[in-house]
């Protein structure tokens, strides 16, 4: 139930970011200056935290999506759906443990 709610919430979040992200990337077609000005705002600490949240949403949605597929197509999927949710949580923690330190160092560790 809650994994289903979280799947919907993260999905909608990712979709709206995707719309914005395609529009900001389209600025490469306007001029190098216009693109660099907008992408520069993605490199501020506040946006850096937003990116961490976005990646967290994507990682959960991705792993839970695989779980949904296994529940649908694997004969034992429904039986192990709860165990698989804990696998999703475990993989989420491991993936974020790999991503967060690196990303936060890039965001807060000086850079440009």
């Amino acid at each position: 139930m809650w994994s289903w709610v979280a799947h919907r919430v993260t999905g909608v979040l990712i979709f709206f970011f995707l719309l914005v992200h395609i529009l900001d990337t389209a600025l490469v077609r306007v001029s190098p200056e216009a693109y660099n000005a907008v992408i520069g705002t993605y490199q501020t600490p506040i946006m850096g935290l937003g990116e961490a949240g976005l990646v967290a949403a994507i990682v959960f949605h991705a792993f839970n999506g695989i779980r949904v597929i296994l529940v649908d197509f694997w004969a034992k999927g429904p039986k192990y759906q709860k165990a698989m949710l804990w696998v999703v949580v475990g993989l989420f923690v491991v993936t974020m443990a790999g991503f967060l330190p690196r990303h936060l160092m890039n965001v807060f560790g000086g850079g440009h």
Partner: protein
Amino acid sequence: MAQTQTPSAIAAPRSPYARRKTTRGNFELYSWVFMRASGVVLLVLVFGHLFVNLMVGEGVHAIDFAFVGGKWSSPFWQVWDLLMLWLAMIHGTNGVRTIVNDYAQRDSTRGVLKVLLYLASTIVVILGTLVIFTFTPCPPGAPAELLPSICFPN
């Protein structure tokens, strides 16, 4: 009290069961299959995108016009991003369509929301596709320090 009947004791129905002919086609089935198939492909495409853009080198700080220009000079990343654009947009639009159908109760509200959704998605997909195919990594007249290294052979 409880009547015990063996399956064979159940009377045959008066008319044979006939599946109702549906005129709606199998759209919902295809969309259900698409969500799962595209989801698996998107996991690879999006994780690869995030790794290359946020984990390698200086991560998000390294992203500027020259970075994008360098990537899109290679057909590999053009195809990667084009595939990601189309699959993610159709996957996301279909997901939001499902949510609108679930929660918008009035017919008119549902209709308006879905028209807006399809309009936004179509514009963004066409725009993104045009950008990938018409992009020039070395626009004439642009300051040299903003351009990718491929603009300056040798």
